[in-house]
């Protein structure tokens, strides 16, 4: 069949060809990790769900390091008690220290992170300085028991799970630190997927034999731990009201959506209603997904929520929610309309048209081109590794989605990734400290994809918060720069933890006005701040 190109098509092709990729795909020297998910004919659900990635500066040398969570070895079938061969270096989680030349050195063993727990199959990671000692700590979620690693400040970590009392159990997925009671100590929220184990596992799909949908297994509760400030945590899941809502949670993100001074959070549930937990300010939460308009699609349909980000995409000063889901569901935008109400905006933002055939996991709203609007990046791949046999129009391996934000409407762009992959976790941060946000994506059975931003000519400002009355890293602070806002958080995406620094694209502006609303209630304004710099803002110790 002969294809004709008319003038309009020609112009469209020309325009596409003229837009270069935003990122260069790199495999930095020394980053030799492979995510071992160990797929089996048993179709154990855990094997299609890992793994997390964190961007953190664990040794405070000013360079972001990379922590990668590994799955484990699965046998077909698994024996009881379950062991995942985590003593084998092939299945270790890995910490890679970044060197000054951009290469990485594996410091897993030296840092004391080699022991991931023999009965643990790895999932995700959360990062924060929970004891306010100036060094970021690691919380690793597992199918099994979770592990809290305290950063000793000398390049090593210590497993303090037992003392802290945060081992949990069951199948934990994404997690994050936030200060829900504004006492200056970071608390911990852990999502759990469902009541499932390898004994109760089953395959679905008849002759196709594939992973079962979540509704095949009972829902379960999430976990909320209050930080007592002495290195221990109290399980307040019941007391806070969190445990009253069972779900099938995969993702979590924090923000104070109603500007009442208390951090709220959104939980992405798989195959059911999404949960928005409003912080009542008295140690309890009320789930208001349906009442607040952020529980179902505009058609009243549940969705397969996986990853989530809670930031302001339309620069109206209010944090919005983006949830990644399965094909035919459209990645969801819940726009914050104010007054505690959200509305479904996947259609108007153009996201529905871009994503209705894709499956999304890790997600970030970051200003990759520094034009002052947060763009969308999603790690993609279907859950089912044989989905093409079931539905030839869908694909297991997918390229990541990069959608540039054009004043609140998302438009497809070239991420620079040419080969489809089984994307899962995704973390965002400025790996090379050039003022342009980079990304790291994990891929089942493969190495991580490191996407280094190609840069442009726009201005930027990157802010590191130093809390004094607030927690040490100022997590939960609301920062406004030239009208844009961000909530300080390392949490969001799927299974992953982002650079704690707050990045703002400034477009043509070479100066900025910065307003910080600290969780302690202190408000701080800095005027005529020079663009293109890394700025540390210290919280005033007295108002």
């Amino acid at each position, binding site marked *: *069949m002969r294809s004709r190109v008319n003038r309009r098509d020609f112009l469209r092709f020309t325009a596409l060809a003229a837009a270069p990729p935003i990122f260069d795909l790199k495999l930095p020297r020394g980053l030799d990790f492979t995510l071992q998910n160990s797929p089996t004919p048993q179709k154990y659900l855990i094997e299609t769900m890992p793994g997390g990635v964190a961007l953190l500066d664990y040794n405070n040398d000013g360079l972001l390091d990379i922590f990668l969570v590994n799955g484990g070895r699965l046998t077909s079938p698994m024996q009881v008690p379950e062991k995942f061969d985590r003593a084998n270096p092939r299945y270790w989680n890995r910490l890679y220290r970044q060197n000054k030349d951009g290469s990485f050195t594996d410091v897993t063993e030296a840092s004391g992170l080699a022991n991931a727990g023999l009965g643990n199959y790895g999932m995700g990671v959360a990062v924060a300085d929970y004891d306010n000692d100036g060094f970021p700590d690691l919380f690793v979620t597992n199918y099994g028991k979770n592990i809290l690693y305290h950063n000793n400040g000398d390049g090593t970590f210590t497993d303090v799970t037992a003392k802290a009392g945060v081992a949990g159990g069951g199948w934990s997925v994404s997690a994050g630190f936030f200060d829900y009671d504004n006492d200056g100590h970071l608390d911990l929220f852990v999502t759990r997927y469902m009541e499932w184990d390898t004994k109760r596992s089953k395959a679905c799909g008849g002759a196709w034999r594939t992973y079962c949908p979540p*509704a095949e*297994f*009972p*829902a379960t509760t999430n976990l909320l731990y209050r930080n007592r400030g002495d290195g221990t945590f109290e399980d307040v899941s019941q007391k806070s009201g969190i445990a009253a809502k*069972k*779900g*099938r949670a995969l993702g979590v993100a924090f923000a104070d959506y109603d500007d009442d001074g208390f951090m709220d959070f959104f939980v992405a549930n798989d*195959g*059911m*209603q999404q949960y928005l937990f409003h912080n009542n300010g008295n140690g309890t939460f009320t789930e208001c997904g*349906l*009442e607040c*308009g952020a529980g*179902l699609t*505009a*058609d*009243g*349909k*549940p969705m397969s929520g996986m990853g989530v980000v809670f930031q302001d995409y339309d620069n109206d000063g209010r944090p919005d929610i983006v949830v990644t889901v399965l*094909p*035919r569901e459209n990645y969801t935008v819940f726009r914050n*309309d104010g007054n505690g*109400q959200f*509305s*479904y905006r996947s*259609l*108007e*933002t*153009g996201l*529905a*048209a871009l994503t*209705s*055939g894709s499956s999304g996991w890790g997600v970030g709203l970051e200003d990759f081109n520094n034009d002052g609007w947060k763009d969308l990046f999603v790690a993609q791949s279907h859950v089912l590794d044989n989905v093409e046999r079931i*539905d*030839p*129009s869908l694909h297991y391996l997918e390229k990541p989605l990069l959608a540039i934000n054009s004043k609140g*409407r998302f438009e497809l762009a070239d991420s620079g990734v040419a080969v489809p992959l089984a994307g899962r976790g995704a973390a965002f941060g400025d790996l090379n400290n050039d003022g342009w946000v980079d990304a790291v994506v994990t891929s089942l059975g493969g190495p991580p994809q490191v996407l280094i931003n190609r840069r442009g000519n726009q201005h930027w400002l990157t802010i590191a918060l130093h809390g004094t009355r607030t927690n040490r890293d100022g997590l939960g602070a609301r920062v406004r720069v030239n009208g844009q806002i961000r909530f300080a958080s390392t949490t969001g995406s799927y299974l992953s933890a982002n650079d704690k620094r707050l990045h703002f694209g400034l477009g043509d502006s070479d100066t900025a006005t910065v307003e910080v609303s600290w969780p302690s209630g202190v408000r701080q304004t800095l005027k005529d701040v020079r663009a293109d710099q890394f700025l540390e803002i210290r919280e005033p110790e007295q108002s």
Partner: protein
Amino acid sequence: MKHAILFLCLALQGVSPEGAQHMQAGVEAHKQGRFDLAIAEFRKATETDPNLAEAFLNLGAELMQIRDNGTAVAPLKRALELRPDLDAAHLQLGYALLSLGYAAEAIPHLERVHALEALGIAQIETGQYQEAVANLSDALVKRPNDPDLLYYLGRAGGLLSKRAIDTLLSVYPDSARSHQAMGENYFVLRQMPQAEQEYREALRQRPDIPGLQLELGLVYAGAAQWSKAEEAFRAEVKRQPASAEAAYRLGDALLKQGKVREARSELERADKLQPGMPETLYSLGKAASLDGDLALAEKSWTRVIALEKETSLAAQAHFGLAALYRKQGKTAEWQREMQEFKRLQNIIEPFRSEPK
């Protein structure tokens, strides 16, 4: 298929007393469910009175009662040799032959007694699909909800359709219609690139065929390629400006891309072309809501609810209304619609709405 046993009047001309006795005994044994004894008695009757057609009929029918259709054929044929006008024997023999796979032989017998259901089935077996469709349709008039009839009618229709398409493909393999048929086939199999290729070729040959662009648009919609779907639906709308479906599909494709104003306009046009189409009204409600015309959204969704009762579309319309009232701060109305939405959700998809 039912085994209709007909026990004939014993006051028959020329029957010997012994034969009549065996016939009577056979009938009694049958009434008591003692089928082997009945068979033995009717067999004796045929031996005593070898020209008694009714005795052969009863023997055959009784053999069919115990599902020994193979053995039943001979006495039934003999009954018809003796009395070719014996309709009950035609019926039984037709059933017996059909059950043994001799559909062609069964047809004349079934035709004679107008056993439409069995005749239709036999005609399916012999490839007379058109006749089968006619006979099964007639049978369905008398028994509208008979699952067997519905099944066989569907099967006959499908086979008739397949034969027509097979003929098309074999006689005119490279015709526009063949490519269209192949496109439909690939679409059903969700093989969208192949479906697209076939429709493109059909359109290249005969761009004038109504519905081709619509089908191509559905392929793109199935693959979530909304801008291409829009283009195809737009072409269909140009070809068939009075097609409500084309207008609806175009409106929906526009809506999927967030082109709210255009979507609304097209959906309003679809509603005018064919009022009372629930899908159109639902999408029109969405477009109007996104466009800020809450009155039209409310009106459209209310119309959906009036048309649809306990369906997922009705649930969606209630949810849309709930969101509308929530934004307007109308708490009572919001609660009412949410309650109805949840009720319908529990009826339609209970396992998805509430975590186990």
